[in-house]
């Protein structure tokens, strides 16, 4: 892509994908520093030397015309830094997910892991229904793997996506502030991540404090399929998903009032995998 003005690059690695964010526009330097800060848990300088990274162009400029032109050329662009960082997060995620199509089993899930063993629990939930809140509570003690997407290899190794957490600034705003996990006091991503269990989160303020229900695998496939990315691109996708579930004790649906109640449930799964 040809964009006018200076270009500053930042190398990231997430979901095992090298990503280069190219910052353009009048405020490219401020943008570069801000992206580096918000994505610091994914920083990977070597990505800029990778022969085939996923490339994301971002433009921060006061001039609406420059922003409009950049958008027409496929860049993520804005006159507002906050909006740009908000828009960048799903773009990086989408690029990393697309690169993994046909390779990783990808669940729309938060991931938290034991800091020593690397055992990781995937907490599946549709967008806006509790993943980030649960992550912020659980990853104070457990390693942070993602609040959005967990990648699973066929050997049940887990690939982290430790993106900044998207946090709503107010009930009346659609804008989410991007905050690195390390800034929120969450624990770093452990090494040697492997799947220890899969939970579907179902928050019900009027329901039981916490209740765990097993789901038969044949039904779990229908439950989980809408919460995956590029499932159909995997060879024998239902068998791949079923194998992951069976190997980790099957899918469980956890109904809970407050995210704090998830702690013993997740701990049990992690301890069981140790």
């Amino acid at each position, binding site marked *: 892509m040809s964009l006018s003005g200076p270009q500053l690059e930042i190398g990231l690695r997430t979901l095992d994908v090298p990503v280069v964010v190219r910052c353009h526009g009048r405020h490219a330097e401020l943008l570069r520093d801000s992206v580096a800060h918000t994505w610091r848990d994914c920083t990977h300088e070597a990505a800029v030397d990778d022969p085939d990274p996923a490339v994301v162009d971002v433009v921060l400029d006061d001039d609406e015309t420059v922003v409009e032109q950049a958008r027409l050329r496929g860049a993520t662009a804005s006159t507002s830094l906050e909006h740009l960082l908000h828009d960048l997060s799903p773009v990086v995620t989408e690029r990393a997910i697309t690169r993994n199509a046909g390779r990783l089993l990808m669940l729309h899930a938060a991931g938290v892991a034991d800091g020593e063993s690397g055992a990781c629990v995937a907490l599946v939930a549709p967008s806006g229904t509790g993943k980030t809140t649960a992550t912020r509570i659980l990853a104070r003690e457990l390693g942070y793997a993602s609040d959005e997407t967990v990648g699973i290899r066929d050997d049940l190794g887990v690939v982290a996506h430790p993106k900044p957490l998207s946090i709503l600034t107010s009930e009346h705003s659609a804008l989410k502030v991007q905050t690195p996990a390390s800034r929120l006091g969450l624990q770093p991503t452990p090494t040697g991540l492997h799947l220890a269990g899969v939970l579907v989160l179902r928050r019900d303020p009027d329901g039981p404090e916490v209740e765990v229900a097993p789901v*038969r*695998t*044949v*039904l779990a*496939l*229908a439950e989980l*399929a*809408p919460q995956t990315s590029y*499932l*159909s691109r995997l060879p*024998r*996708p*239902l*068998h791949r998903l*079923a194998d992951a579930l069976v190997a980790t004790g099957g899918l469980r649906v956890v109904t809970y009032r407050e995210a704090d109640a998830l702690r013993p449930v997740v701990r049990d799964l992690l301890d069981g995998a140790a």
Partner: protein
Amino acid sequence: MRARRVPVVDEYVEDGEAAVFVDGRVVVLSPLATHLLGLVADEWTDLKTVSQGLEAAFGVPPTGSAAEATAEALQALEAEGVVEIENSVNRPISN
């Protein structure tokens, strides 16, 4: 009436129940529907063949004939997008 299977992405069977990945979604079939799907071939299969197989496995239906029950069950499978019925006007529209 004749029916044939629609190509699916994948099919997983557990305890006689199938999860079928078709048209970007996963459909879970009852034991009867799973058995029925197993009787339908990739090529056009006669209702009589399917009906006899279903009757052998599940017995005579409490009301109506086996052929009527089979036709009804096939139409339900067609609505889920896992089989195709010859000259049917009820075929679901794929995206």
